[in-house]
Structures are given as C-alpha cells and as structure tokens.
C-alpha cells in the first residue's frame, strides 16, 4: 500500500468516491455490515454532540470548544481498528476518537466547561490527557512506543496532530525518535487545511504532509480522510505494520474543517463561503450514508428519529456535566505533586484564613 500510493508522487489513497461508489474494490477493508452501520451511527452521534456543543457554547453554558464538523471519518476509521489496550495520544480535536476509546461525553463536556476532571477520561483505557501545546504529544507517543517494546506488550499507540502541528519541531523529533526506536506508533495527521486562519499552502512547501514521514524513514501515506473505507484500510495496514515490529507509520488524513477553529474564531475573516461549500460534497457522513442506502443497510427515513434520540442523550450528558460538583479550593493544590511540599500546604491554609476574613467583611 505504501508503495502503490507513494506520497512522493502525491498519490491519494481512496476507496469510495463522493457519491458513495466503491472505486477501488481491491482495497476495500474487511468490515461486517453490522460494524459498518455502527460506525455510521457513531459518526452521527459524534456530529450531533459536536453541533450541540457549539450551541451550548453560544448559550453561554460552556467555554471555548473546537468543532469536529466534517472530520468524523478519521475517528470512524480509527475506532474500527483501535483495541482497548491500544493507546490514544490526542491533541484537542478528536471527539469521535475519545468516545471510541470509552471516554464519556459528560467528561468531555466537563473539560470544555473548565474542569481538569474532564481530561482524566476515567473509563478509557490507555488514553492520556488532551494536549493543547501543538505537537508536543507527538514525542510522548514515541516514548510510549518505546515502553511498549521494552515491556514486550501487544499494544499500538495512536497519536493525532493537525496539519499546522507538522511545522513544530516536536513533530520532527517525535517522528525521528519513533523511527529510530522502531516504536509501534500510528501517527495520524488530521489535515483539515487550516491552522486557525493559516491555510495549508502557507504552512509548508511540501507537496503533502505524508512526504515528511518518508524523510524520517517512516512508511507514510496520504489518505482521503473523508472516506471511511480508505481510513479504515489505512489504519488496519498501519496497525499491522506497527504491531509486527516494522516501526511507526504516518497517515495524512485529508479532510476539511467545516466549522470554525474554535467557538471564538470567525472563519469569514480568512476563507470564502464558496471554498467552504466546495467541500460540502465530500462530507464523510453523507458519503457513507449514500453507500449504506445503496446497499440497503440504512433507512434514511429513520435517521431523524435517531438523531432526536441522540440529542436527548447528549442533553442528558450535558446536564450531568452542568450539575457536576463545584470546584473545591483543595483541587487547585491536591494534584500538583504526588508528595506535596509543606510550603504549598501553608499557602492553602493562609488562603483559607483570608476567605474567613472576607466573610467577616460582609
């Protein structure tokens, strides 16, 4: 696969076209109909939650949130392959992958409501917290990969980063370390064409992102990230490659960020409506739906009621987050060290004295 779709020739790995037709049957991944329908429903659920998150934020019920709208097939493909014991090393725009790993939507909302608790992801096995400093997590993935080899474990690391992130030094260092150490890491770049306002063309002169992996001796491929079949197949091959001791793989998933960078961003400043609309026909959910309908695996008329069911569930999770306990003073201090220095204990006690005094002011 890496040879046939060489990034050096800017080949794009695609299995299904925008109309839901299979154009490369020889590369069709093995997925049961049932699993495929589940993937569709999961993507639909993630999109419902994502769109609702944006509207909660607009209602002032949540702080800044980064939309995933239009990028759902990347997590969709990962979810089919990633096992419970595999590691997820995320950036901050991987709602579908977090859910697939077992994070609760309530917790994800908690994070964007301003609780550290929301990035603990209790219940999600081998999933580390959200990394906000761009590309810093790419290096951690190589280290986790080293530890997996060291302990002879049957685990693969999935590390995600954006197109902008590939410009950071950490991206190069992480890839190089993973390659030199033969670490079992699947690097997935969500190339959504923008780093906030900066378009891909201004980010790099490389013809694509996958070629960057080649330079480090990492097998790399550029994939249509809005094609669930291409994503699934690429991730399957990459997973097999990494877990059989052949080292890391870099998957560039070409997609488009249909929403704003975050809820504080206004894309009209730097891109046109026409451009946005030109990507609409490649929407990953629409494409999979077309395929499923043709195969009689999906009844479109039932989708509306399913979505309203999802909305209720999202609301339930959101309300659970809204009703989460207040943030005690103790939590500011409690987790900074395993062994808390005395000085810090004193600072808390002193602050409590102030709070008592302040009560007395009223």
């Amino acid at each position, binding site marked *: 696969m890496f040879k046939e779709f060489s990034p050096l020739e800017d080949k794009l790995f695609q299995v299904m076209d925008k109309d839901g037709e299979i154009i490369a049957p020889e590369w069709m991944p093995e997925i049961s109909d049932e699993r495929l329908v589940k993937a569709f429903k999961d993507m639909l659920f993630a999109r419902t939650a994502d769109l609702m998150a944006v509207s909660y934020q607009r209602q002032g019920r949540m702080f800044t949130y980064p939309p995933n709208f239009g990028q759902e097939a990347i997590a969709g493909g990962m979810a089919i392959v990633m096992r419970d014991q595999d590691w997820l090393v995320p950036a901050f725009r991987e709602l579908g992958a977090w859910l697939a790993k077992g994070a609760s939507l309530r917790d994800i909302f908690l994070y964007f409501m*301003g609780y550290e608790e929301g990035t603990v992801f209790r219940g999600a096995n081998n999933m580390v917290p959200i990394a*906000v*400093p761009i590309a810093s997590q790419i290096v951690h993935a190589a280290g986790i990969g080293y530890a997996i080899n060291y302990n002879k474990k049957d685990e693969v690391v999935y590390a995600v980063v954006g197109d902008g992130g590939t410009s950071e030094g950490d991206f190069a260092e992480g890839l190089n370390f993973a390659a030199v150490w033969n670490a079992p890491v699947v690097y997935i770049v969500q190339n959504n064409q923008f780093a906030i*306002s*900066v378009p891909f063309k201004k980010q790099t002169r490389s013809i694509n992102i996958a070629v960057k992996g080649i330079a480090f001796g990492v097998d790399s491929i550029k994939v249509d990230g809005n094609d669930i079949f291409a994503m699934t197949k690429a991730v399957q091959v990459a997973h097999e490659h990494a877990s059989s001791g052949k080292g890391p793989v870099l998957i560039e998933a070409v997609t488009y960020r249909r929403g704003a960078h975050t809820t*504080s961003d206004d894309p009209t400043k730097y891109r046109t409506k026409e451009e946005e609309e030109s990507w609409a026909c490649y929407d990953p959910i629409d494409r999979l739906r077309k395929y499923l309908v043709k195969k009689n695996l999906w009844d479109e008329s039932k989708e509306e009621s399913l979505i309203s069911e999802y909305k209720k569930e999202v609301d339930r999770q959101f309300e659970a987050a809204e009703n989460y306990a207040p943030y005690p003073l103790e*939590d*500011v201090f409690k987790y*900074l060290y395993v062994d808390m220095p005395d000085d810090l204990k004193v600072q808390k006690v002193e602050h409590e004295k102030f709070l008592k005094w302040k009560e007395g002011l009223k």
Partner: protein
Amino acid sequence: MEGGSEMKVMTIVQAVTDALDIKLAEDPTIVTFGEDVGVEGGVFRVTEGLQKKHGEHRVFDSPLAESGIVGTAVGMAMAGLRPVVEMQFCGFVYPAFNQIISHAARIHNRSRGRYKTPMVIRFPYGGGINALEHHSESMEVLYAHIPGLKVVVPSTPYDAKGLLISAIESDDTIIFMEPKRIYRAIKQEVPEEKFTIPIGKAKVLSEGTDVTVVAYGAMIREAQKALALAKKDGISAELIDLRTIYPIDRETIAQSVKKTGRLVVVHEGPTTFGVAAEISAMVEEDVFQHLEAPVTRVTGFDTIVPLPRGEHHYIISPEKIYYGIQKSVRY
C-alpha cells in the same frame, strides 16, 4: 517625552495596534509576524489591518512553530531588521525558549557588541478570561531571571502605546507582555501622535503615606479597587505601577518605602522566587532601617492556574489585596 497631541479613545488592543502602525510607517526595517498575525490580524486582532496597510512582506503569517518564529527573528535582527514577533499565548512561548535564552538574550554579549538583537517578543498573558490550559499564566519572572532580556508589562492603553514604541526602538531584546484580561476592558484617551515612555521607570499612580503597594499589568486595576477599600478604612496607600519588570526601578520603590515604611507587592504569577520576592530583597538592602513591617506578598499560589471553574480560587481579588494592605498596616 509624553505627547500632547490630539487624543483618541483606545483600548489596550488598539493602542498596541497603533504603536505597531506608527513604527511600521516610520521605520522600513521593522517587520512583524507570527501565527495568524497577517491575514487574520491575530487571534486578539492586535495586528488587524496592518497587513493591508503595510504589505505582506512586512506583516505576515508564519508557520506554526514558536522556535522558528523567534529563531528567524534573531537572524533577521543580526542582519539589520527590527522584528516584532507575536507568540499567540503566554503558555506557547516555551518551544521558543532555546532561541530566547540561548540567542536572543546573548548574541550581543557573545559577539562583544558586534551583533545586536533589536527585537520585541510580544504576547498576551494572565488569567481571568475563562480559557483552556496554557492560556492564563503569568510567567514574567522566567524572562526577568534571564540575563540579557528586558521585560515590560503595560497596564493601560496609554502605557501600552508608549512602552511598545520604546520597546521597538530599543536595541535590546524586549519581552512585551500584554494583560489580555484588560485588553478591551479599559478605554482611555491616548495621544494620536507618537510618544514614548522610558523602559525601566516605574510610575507612582497615586500618592499615600501609610503603605506602598507595588503592582503591574492587570493587577493595577485590582489594586486600585483595593486602595478604594483601604481608603474607607482611613488607610492612605501609595500605588506604584512597575511598568517594567526588568530593569526594575528600585529607586522609585525605595523612595516610596522610605516614606511609608510598609510594602505590599501584588502579582498574578506564583509566589515562590517571584517578582515580589526580588523586590522584597531589594527593599531590605536599600531601606531596611525604614521598614516598619515585613514585606507582604499578595501573589499567586505556587500552582498551575486552574481551568475556568476553579480559576476564581487563584485570581487575586481586590479584597485579597486589601487584606494584604491591612495585614501590613496593622503589623
């Protein structure tokens, strides 16, 4: 030199834009760049309109890499340009630390003065805007501790304009930290013309006799509220806006403490090894015999700034400053 021209009401954001605009128009060696700085005009719109006006070769977007941004600025500066670079947030400067500490701060010394680094690294800092992690910290002390750097923190639109113009005109590397919590919260009349405010000089904002309060950046506004509370108590406090963290104006602080005998230092950043600790040591060295109470620090916990729901615990309130003032006066 403080101007007396036509006045215009500005926010801190607008004052920074104005300073950049004036300097870009005046000096062809100035360029400004960073992540989203060009087309978008920065995530806080500080550079809005500047690319259109001054051209893409002078105001531009860089790839997403802080070390790259600062490192190329060092190169530009050695080659005769005067770069002003933006780091998107206070918590994203760290990838550039090698370039800042190993080069921007040292090229002049290393080359025995042959090469200069007349550059400004500006970024928003501080808490209080309900942001994600890494967006709320106040780490001025990291820069102030590095030999070869100067650190400037304005507290008003007027100061932002005058200090930034001075920073751009300085031949040294200047770290310019903008209090984003009050980016748009304060509006003030600012001269439309160019004016400068000297780097390294503090400003006495209000005179008093009982206690000296030293603060800077977003804490000035909070300290002013605290002073109003203290006044009701009959306490006369003198407020000093540090304006520059390094080189620190120890003379102005010493003179004030000589008069009041008491000192409260306020900052958002962590307490231990912080700016207040340094000021405390200086005051002890300079005017020990005038001190009537130990120096009081009203400063951040030695913790990470909590995410928004816990941030109120961390943020320094006017009441907490007032508490510090009382503690000092009643010692």
